[in-house]
């Protein structure tokens, strides 16, 4: 399996929308064929529409606040010794995470499609918060599907969603987390696609949602590549881009523009509690390919194909599947994947928050854990950049419970 140069990764699928002949596709009920087909055609047109691109760029700048900062973590670098550590502080985007890019683009598309309603799923609550924000901004009515367990553990984002005037639909089936929220949201769309557009919160689901999401978050690397050139004069030879992966939307955005460069990609999955068999790391732990939410991907499942239970301290990574794009990157050996445990993530959160001005949420803390692990073994000519794609504020309750105190 190989990645082609010069072609956007999202377009490297065959006629059945499969990447590498194995990942992705559209495993969907007949009722969704037409709406997905319509959305696919509309998006193909809009991608080439200069007016639409201008509109996107306008909102990315004036509404989201592009570009987000790119900073050196001097204290962390000195503390660890070894590689130079930088952060792309995507949590500075309006709303506090990368999910705003996808949400904004989906709302712009919904407007073009003449739809008045938009629905979406959420795990950590960011995708839901951003969609509700963007929906309010663009005058769309919004419904957010969220697992009952996540509603309890991500209170600040839940309150934000409500404040934005969106309806939260608690999902009480199955594990009551992201996987069930996505299922329930899809079911809702099956029943209401005549009036409603759906926004899938990550680079998962039927192909078109993977495309729209990765195309939207690519803004992160478009900015970063310029910021790197400003800082170093060129793209340094030994550069590692570290990003946590749950569904994989922030990593796709963080890596996209570097696809044809020498930059090394490292994805960090959620390893779950230490000494537990439960995790959310299908790539690291050799899960088999299966179908989840309309796409073929490596997915945590039993022998029969029942989707497995996952556990992670970070609601945003607590998902049994992974974007087909990341499966493609893994099997073509373009990216490497590893995992960090709950405990490692918590430690990383504390260290970074103590030493630096930023305070990563538990999702990017998984990526920082890997940076902390590898930096001392590297030389000062090595560059590590971590995508700090969320702020710890939303995890205040969990952190307090686990560590006894919360710093930011």
């Amino acid at each position: 399996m190989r990645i082609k140069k010069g072609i956007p990764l999202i377009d490297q699928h065959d006629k059945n929308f499969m990447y590498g002949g194995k990942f992705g596709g559209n495993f969907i009920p007949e009722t969704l064929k037409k709406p997905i087909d319509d959305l696919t055609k509309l998006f193909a047109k809009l991608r080439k529409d200069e007016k639409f691109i201008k509109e996107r760029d306008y909102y990315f700048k004036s509404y989201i606040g592009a570009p987000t900062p790119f900073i050196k973590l001097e204290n962390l670098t000195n503390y660890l010794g070894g590689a130079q550590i930088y952060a792309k502080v995507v949590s500075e985007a309006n709303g506090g995470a990368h999910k705003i890019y996808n949400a904004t683009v989906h709302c712009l598309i919904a407007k073009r499609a003449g739809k008045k309603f938009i629905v979406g799923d959420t795990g950590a609550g960011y995708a839901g918060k951003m969609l509700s924000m963007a929906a309010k901004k663009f005058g769309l009515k919004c419904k957010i599907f969220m697992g009952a367990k996540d509603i309890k553990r991500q209170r600040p984002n839940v309150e934000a969603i409500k404040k934005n005037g969106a309806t939260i639909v608690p999902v009480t089936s199955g594990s009551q987390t992201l996987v069930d929220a996505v299922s329930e949201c899809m079911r809702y769309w099956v029943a209401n696609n005549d009036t409603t557009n759906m926004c899938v919160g990550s680079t998962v689901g039927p192909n078109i949602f993977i495309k729209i999401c990765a195309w939207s978050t690519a803004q992160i690397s478009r900015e970063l590549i310029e910021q790197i050139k400003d800082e170093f004069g060129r793209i340094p030879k030994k550069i590692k881009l570290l990003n946590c992966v749950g569904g994989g939307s922030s990593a796709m955005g963080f890596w996209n523009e570097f696809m044809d460069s020498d930059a090394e990609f490292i994805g960090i999955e959620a390893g779950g509690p230490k000494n537990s068999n439960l995790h959310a790391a299908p790539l690291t732990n050799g899960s088999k390919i299966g179908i989840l939410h309309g796409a073929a991907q490596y997915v945590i499942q039993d022998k029969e194909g029942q989707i497995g239970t996952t556990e992670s301290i970070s609601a945003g990574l607590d998902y049994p599947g992974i974007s087909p794009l990341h499966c493609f990157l893994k099997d073509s050996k373009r990216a490497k994947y590893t995992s960090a445990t709950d405990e490692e993530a918590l430690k990383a959160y504390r260290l970074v928050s103590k030493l630096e001005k930023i305070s990563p949420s538990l999702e990017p803390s998984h990526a920082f854990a890997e940076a902390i692990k590898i930096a001392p073994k590297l030389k000062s000519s090595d560059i590590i950049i971590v995508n700090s794609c969320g702020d710890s504020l939303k995890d205040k309750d969990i952190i307090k419970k686990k560590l006894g105190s919360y710093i930011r």
Partner: protein
Amino acid sequence: MKSNIAVTFENCKKENRAALITYTVAGDNTKNISLKILNSISKHADILELGFPHNTPIADGGQIQGSSYRALKNGIKLQNVFQIVKKFKRYNPNKPLILMGYFNLVYQCGENNFLKKCKSSGVDGLIIVDLPFPENKNFAYKCKKNSINFIQLLSPTTPIKRVKKIINVSHDMLYYISMLSTTGGKLKVSPKNILKNYNRIKKINRKKNIVIGFGITNKTIASLKKADGLVVGSQLCKTITNSLKKRLNTAKVLDNMVYNLKKKII
């Protein structure tokens, strides 16, 4: 040789009535009870759909989710599903039985292996909810080679050009989804309009047997009886839920319910 499904539709047509098709979930709430249910309702139903449960069903409403959940909780495995079919078919060899479920279970089992198991247990047809045309071309072809009906779905959102293509590749039965809904939704389109859409599709090839499903209950079934066949699923699952709660004899309650459904369309 004609399939059991084709023969059943012919017989119903001779009697000038719609075929009654039921849907229950294998292992709901135990293997034995679900087999007993099949045995008792098969006296009245013309075709039996049997769900093989999946824990991430993206097109099922609450009732069928509940049934699947109960079955999985009691440990149902694919192997048990085929055992149930085999036991049922031993005494009812000519009664068509259709397995319905999601593709991941077929995929993990292996397409060829799955079909082999279907064949040896006596499965007459398959409905794979998340394997639409044209992605299903290969698998549908394999089914045909094994004399198993692959049942294509049509929905109100399917454009007429696509409907024609799907009808062209279809086997002995097609399934028309009455409205935009997951299974078990309240009928939000009038029966008159459903039949209007249905007839538009039927006109393309009158010989094809097209059944209507989704949202059909004992209250609505009579108004749709002009169709080739009608599927009742969620209402049966709901009835199972209620009879379990009240500790009634589930098979007997279902027997009664299906008997009454049948009465309404003959």
